[in-house]
């Protein structure tokens, strides 16, 4: 076991960890976005979806714990890479330029630590606001087909009727896209899965995934702010 730990904490082992947790987080994000689409259908559709999700019970808890582990591992490895980077070049260049060409270095790849940290802070607030926010006991209740369930739709609309929240969400979602623009293809490269043949495809796919997820998430608060009637 300690041998396995040695391998997994080596410079290459940690790449496997970031890669695999990264892909896991992207998959979660896609599922999350698909769930969000229920908001566009309407109040009942969204509340029913969250009700069904909550009623998964222990299954949901296992998924949540898995997700939390993914986030934690991903963040810890990310920080370790950042700290090693600082150690490995104690004195920085006076002038530093990218050679261009085949380089994959860009704003996105250089800001992974910053965008990642902001996303992490955002997540804490996001989960506190919605998952652990006001529920049935606080009067956020709706009745669908004779069943009382949490009116999360109302909470979402109330939050996204506040301009500062909409602005913050929009910015963070753009940063999420920035993170994924490098993160997506990089995860596959970290797992040693790419070569000259597949790299261009996965790299381009990464841009597509980043843009789609970013826009997919940021469109919702904007839509709620401008087009949803309060208390509808």
């Amino acid at each position, binding site marked *: 076991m300690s041998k396995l730990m040695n391998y997994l904490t080596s410079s*290459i082992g940690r790449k496997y960890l970031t890669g695999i947790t990264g892909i896991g987080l992207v998959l979660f994000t896609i599922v999350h976005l698909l769930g969000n689409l229920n908001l566009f259908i309407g109040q009942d559709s969204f509340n029913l979806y969250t009700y069904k999700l909550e009623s998964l019970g222990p299954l949901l808890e296992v998924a949540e714990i898995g997700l939390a582990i993914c986030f934690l591992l991903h963040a810890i490895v990310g920080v370790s*890479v950042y700290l090693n980077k600082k150690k490995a070049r104690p*004195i920085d260049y006076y002038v530093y330029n990218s*050679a261009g060409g085949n*380089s*994959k270095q860009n704003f996105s790849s250089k800001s992974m630590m910053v965008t990642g940290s902001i996303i992490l802070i955002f997540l804490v607030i996001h989960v506190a606001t919605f998952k652990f926010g006001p529920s049935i006991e606080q009067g956020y209740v709706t009745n669908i087909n004779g069943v009382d369930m949490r009116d999360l739709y109302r909470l979402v609309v109330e939050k996204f009727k506040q301009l500062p929240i909409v602005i913050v969400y929009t910015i963070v979602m753009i940063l999420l896209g920035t993170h994924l623009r490098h993160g997506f293809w990089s995860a596959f490269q*970290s797992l*040693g899965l790419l070569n000259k043949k597949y790299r261009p495809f996965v790299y381009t796919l990464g841009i597509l995934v980043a843009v789609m997820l970013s826009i997919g998430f940021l469109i919702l608060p904007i839509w709620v702010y401008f087009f949803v009637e309060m208390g509808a």
Partner: protein
Amino acid sequence: MADKNLLQIHGKFVDYTVENANSHMSFLELLDLLNEQLIKKGEEPVEFDNDCREGICGSCSMVINGIPHGPTKESATCQLHMRHYNDGDTIIVEPFRAKGFPIIKDLVVDRSAFDRIIQAGGYNSVNVGSAPDANSILIPKDKADMAFDFAACIGCGACVAACPNSSASLFTAAKISQLSLLPQGHPERYRRVIRMVEQMEKEGFGDCSNHGECEAVCPKGISIDAISIMRREYFKAMLKNV
């Protein structure tokens, strides 16, 4: 931008004007000319490492206007010619900066960390005795080509110098991949990858973040495919050893 105070403690930049430079000169010949002029003035010449001056020894390590070996693709500093610059240009030259490459003097850095990474790879088993038949071990053309591409690494260290994280992954991966692709390298392949990666870490190089800057500056154009292969080799070695 670098911390000016740190630079003051660990060295300094000096402005030199090189007279009579011409466009046919290589960058190293420009430095030769500068040193001649400095010596005539009684000043100390600028130390820089060089040997073959034809792009195969990998010793002319320096960062020119922020790019190791300068702006031209797939070339070493000795292959960079002054025709890429204009008369009157200011060119900023720095040594490779990485903890794994301690600076000896001026532009000269100690790249023996690379030697130690190769040493850590150990030996390759070979049959001794009478000379084997030339075609007794068959190697597919594509594998041979790939192995040769990786074997083109001259160990110049530009990959480390260009990497925002000062990672030596491309160098180490090129050495590992070159041997893992050929049957002759197979007997020790799993031991080799573990030991070389371990040594790479011990030398104080950073982690790879897949910026791919190494491939862009490599004078031999070695692809980060090597890093993919290294990661796959390491994974197989991990499964074998756990």
